């Protein structure tokens, strides 16, 4: 099962933070209040877009071909994402 990492509180829609980390080998637990990194604050679709951009060596033309979209459509998505990240990480 593909479990989604929740990034917003289902109750009040505020941003969630990490309170516990666990070692999958020895089950040691670390507790605290760690803010989510900026990239994890994005939606799954946006994270996949950034991963695809990285794997295409930053070529929007290659990405457009892979995604079956036009070049300006992919460039607009990237520009919107840059704007969103700037707001998340002022």
């Amino acid at each position, binding site marked *: 099962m593909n479990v989604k990492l929740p990034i917003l509180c289902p109750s009040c829609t505020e941003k969630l933070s990490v309170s516990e980390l666990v070692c999958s080998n020895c089950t040691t637990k670390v507790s605290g209040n760690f803010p989510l990194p900026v990239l994890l604050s994005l939606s799954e679709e946006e994270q996949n877009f950034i991963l695809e951009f990285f794997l295409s060596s930053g070529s929007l033309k290659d990405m*457009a071909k892979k995604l*079956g*979209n*036009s*070049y*300006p*459509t992919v*460039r*607009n998505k990237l*520009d*919107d994402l840059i704007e969103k990240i700037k707001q998340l990480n002022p």
Partner: protein
Amino acid sequence: MKWNILLNPFERYSEKSLLVFGITFTLFGSAVAYLMKARFDGVFDMHLVENISFIDPFLDNILNIFTLVLLFVLFGKSINHKTRWIDILSVAIVARIPFYLLPLLNIGGVLEKSLEGLLNRMDFQDLNNPPAIEPSDLLIILLFSGVSILCLGWFIVLFWNGFKTATNAKGIKNVIFFIILLILAEVISKILISIFNS
């Protein structure tokens, strides 16, 4: 999905595919316009004329596309400096395709005859008494009017969707400027076409 291809092909298809498709339709539309004696004398105009040379509809379309590209590249660059002229060119060429369907309504000179029939019955000295119009003429003129409005609407939707994709334009301010520029493009293209015809 199919509607999306008809209303916003710019989201999906590359500028090369759009240009090939658009240029093919422009050439086809210009040739059909010549055969049907139609002129595209403005970015959203189509009129039937008595005399036409083969080059006229081609020149009309070149001037219309040139006007749209010139104005909307400048506007696009002011919104987003990454706007490419090739995207605006493909938008201007493809968005005008609906107008190339209009001359087809004059196959066999049907529309021309109906309009002539109406004009012959008009008494311009006595405009208070409307002329008796043949029902068949009325039907053809109403059909042409309806299809013209649909094509104009289709052109505007295609052009806005394409422009939005090419420039990432958002917000009501850009929509208002877009409408103003479209009207300005109509005026400029009409002037350019009349200069080239004089």
